[in-house]
């Protein structure tokens, strides 16, 4: 009896120690037959915990990162974690369906959560990160709960070629139905567009007979533009549809310096090109006055009047970005100006404000902050690409786009001083001609001014939210005064710039995104 009493605790201890094993065996047994979700990469099963939620499957990210590559940080602590795929940073908040992929903000079908294996992410997270950056495809098969991961097969992309020679310059346009991932290699005497993941379906072979472009050849992976020895090329992008545009000219005919307006004036032809942009259009009505007048209607009327008067009064070629009530993306408006090698870009708008009492005209040019920020972003992207390994397939296309953006912004920054000068002339003429409150020359990060490769302004010719000004703007005589003021400002701008330049001092560096010209007596 004494022995039994002594051994009873040992017996109990043994039983208790065995209990977890018995429990786990009991729990594990019924789960075994129906296999859980499976993740397969190149035919190999990955140990990735998967949670089936009402919004769809959620996949543990950490084991996927270990298999697909990349770096994960901050996933154990805090509200957000960072995933680095090649040179692209993905910032994700636990419980938040909005993430950033590089500079892009992306919405998810459901927010990432913490779960087994650390952060768990939905399927579209994987597609919008690894899929977009590294070219992986993620095929979820709900019938057997399998996620098949594979490298996306390359697509065949049709490309069309146009070569136009006009006034000593040849423009080569490569048009794609969708945006390809590519890299641009520019060398003396040639330009190559190299596709990174896709294949080209070349156009029907046609002979290029041009004084600046010797030939354009296609292979499945690249387009090569062969130039004559003394030619050089400038390239830019156009959207909708995606186009790569190459302007080829002889080296001697290139503009000397964008920043030297006097020199630029000397080299320009006598006929200047003015692009007028009637603001808004189509479904984008712009502001609507209390009497029901839509901004888009009046801007078109004013632009047409300005076109007619400019053509009568000045030796200029006038191009309108839209001639009817159609919707035109903002980037396409400046693209029209760039394509036409415009000397001036004027976007015509009518204003509205929240609250009562706003009235008068104001003229905007691009804030240097807007230009600088975009340039810095582009430069940063380029630096990242450079240090992470130039030619990384995943972001090379983006890197190239960033480089293009950087070039645009650098070019635009050269035009800021001229834009300011022109804006000052416009505002002065409007103040003098009309009994309007002078709201001054201002700067703002307006999208329509950002891509312009020439001096560019946006002029607000009055507040249609103000009943008095709305009524005036419906009066043809009043509109004629507005147009006359613009014609005079353009005429003064196109004169040799010395006299007017002295009257408009350069702005100090911009502190705010939207700012008034110093000296302007008006509040913002």
């Amino acid at each position, binding site marked *: 009896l004494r022995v039994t009493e002594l051994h009873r605790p040992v017996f109990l201890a043994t039983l208790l120690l065995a209990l977890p094993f018995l429990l786990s065996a009991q729990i594990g047994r019924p789960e075994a037959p129906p296999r859980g979700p499976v993740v397969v990469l190149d035919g190999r099963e990955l140990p990735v915990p998967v949670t089936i939620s009402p919004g769809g499957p959620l996949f543990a990210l950490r084991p996927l990162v270990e298999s697909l590559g990349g770096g994960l940080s901050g996933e154990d602590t805090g509200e957000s974690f960072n995933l680095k795929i090649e040179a692209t940073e993905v910032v994700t908040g636990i419980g938040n369906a909005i993430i950033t992929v590089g500079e892009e903000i992306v919405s998810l079908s459901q927010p990432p959560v913490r779960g087994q294996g650390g952060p768990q992410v939905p399927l579209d997270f994987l597609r919008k990160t690894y899929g977009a950056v590294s070219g992986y495809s993620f095929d979820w098969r709900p019938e057997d709960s399998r996620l098949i991961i594979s490298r996306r097969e390359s697509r065949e992309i049709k490309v069309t070629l146009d070569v136009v020679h006009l006034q000593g310059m040849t423009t080569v346009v490569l048009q794609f139905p969708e945006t390809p991932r590519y890299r641009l290699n520019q060398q003396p005497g040639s330009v190559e567009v190299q596709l990174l993941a896709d294949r080209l379906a070349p156009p029907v072979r046609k002979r290029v007979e041009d004084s600046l472009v010797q030939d354009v050849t296609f292979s499945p992976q690249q387009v090569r533009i062969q130039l004559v020895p003394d030619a050089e090329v400038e390239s830019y992008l156009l959207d909708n549809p995606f186009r790569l545009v190459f302007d080829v000219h002889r080296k001697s005919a290139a503009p000397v310096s964008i920043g030297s307006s006097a020199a630029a004036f000397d080299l320009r032809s006598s006929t200047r090109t003015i692009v007028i942009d009637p603001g808004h259009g189509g479904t984008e009505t712009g502001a609507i006055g209390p009497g029901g007048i839509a901004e888009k209607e009046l801007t078109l009327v004013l632009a047409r009047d300005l076109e007619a008067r400019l053509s009568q009064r000045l030796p200029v070629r006038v191009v309108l970005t839209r001639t009817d009530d159609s919707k035109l993306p903002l980037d396409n408006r400046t693209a029209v100006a760039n394509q036409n090698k415009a000397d001036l870009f004027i976007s015509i*708008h009518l204003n509205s404000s*929240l609250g009562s009492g706003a009235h008068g005209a104001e003229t905007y040019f691009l804030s240097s902050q807007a230009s600088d*920020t975009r340039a810095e972003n582009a430069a940063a992207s380029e630096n990242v690409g450079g240090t992470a390994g130039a030619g990384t397939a995943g972001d090379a296309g983006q890197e190239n786009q960033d480089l293009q953006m950087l070039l645009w912004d650098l070019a635009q920054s050269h035009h800021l001083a001229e834009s300011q000068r022109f804006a000052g002339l416009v505002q002065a003429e409007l103040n003098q001609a009309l009994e309007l409150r002078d709201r001054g020359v201002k700067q703002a*990060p307006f999208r*329509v001014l950002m891509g312009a490769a020439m001096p560019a302004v946006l002029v607000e010719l009055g507040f249609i939210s103000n009943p008095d000004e709305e009524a005036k703007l419906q009066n043809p005589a009043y509109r004629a005064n507005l147009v006359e003021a613009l014609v005079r400002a353009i005429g003064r701008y196109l004169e040799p710039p010395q006299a007017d330049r002295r009257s408009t001092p350069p702005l100090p560096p911009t502190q705010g995104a939207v700012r008034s010209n110093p000296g302007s007596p008006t509040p913002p």
Partner: protein
Amino acid sequence: MSRRAAGWVLAIALLLVLGSLAWWWQRGSGGGRAGRRSAAAGEAGAGPTERHAFDLYFPAGGGGLRAERRELQVSESPKDRIRKVLEALLAGPAAATAAATTAATPTPGASAAAPGADAGLVRPFPPEVKLGSVELSADGTAFVDLRWPDHEDPPESGSTEEIQRVYCLVDSVALNVPQVNRVVLLWNGTQRITFAGHLDTSRPLLPDRTLLAP
């Protein structure tokens, strides 16, 4: 084995069992629950709250922004402060000083001031526009999502009205929450090139003090 030694063995065995059960619970079905609790704790409202004064920058007559001092119940969390500031801003000027101010533009986006608003200050968006997600990245970029059900686009407007709408949000957040230095605005969950055809909202926006009335 003595009775004392047997007691020790039993105690150790009990501890092992309890530890195993706790580990199993944490790793298994209980882990998900723990994770959800953790995620919820990370949301706005974490920690004790206190009354704190903020300057809310409302659109004002004449085209700029003007501050209205407001006391809000907030926690120490920057996200909580961003959210509370924006919710108060979207609700419109305080009902302390009455004035019948209305938006000048009778578009669908036109928004009357909150009842009894301070003279000249205007609610920036229609009442149906609500605050969605708020996120704050480590580099001080606040992501602010505005939701307007059944409206794909923000209200149509002229440039001054758009500047007032965009920068009342940017300035109210960035000038009140020190952890924020720039703001990315989303509309119905997506970033837009522009809200109303003028300002470039495809990039983070810095606060702009030049719009503030003295």
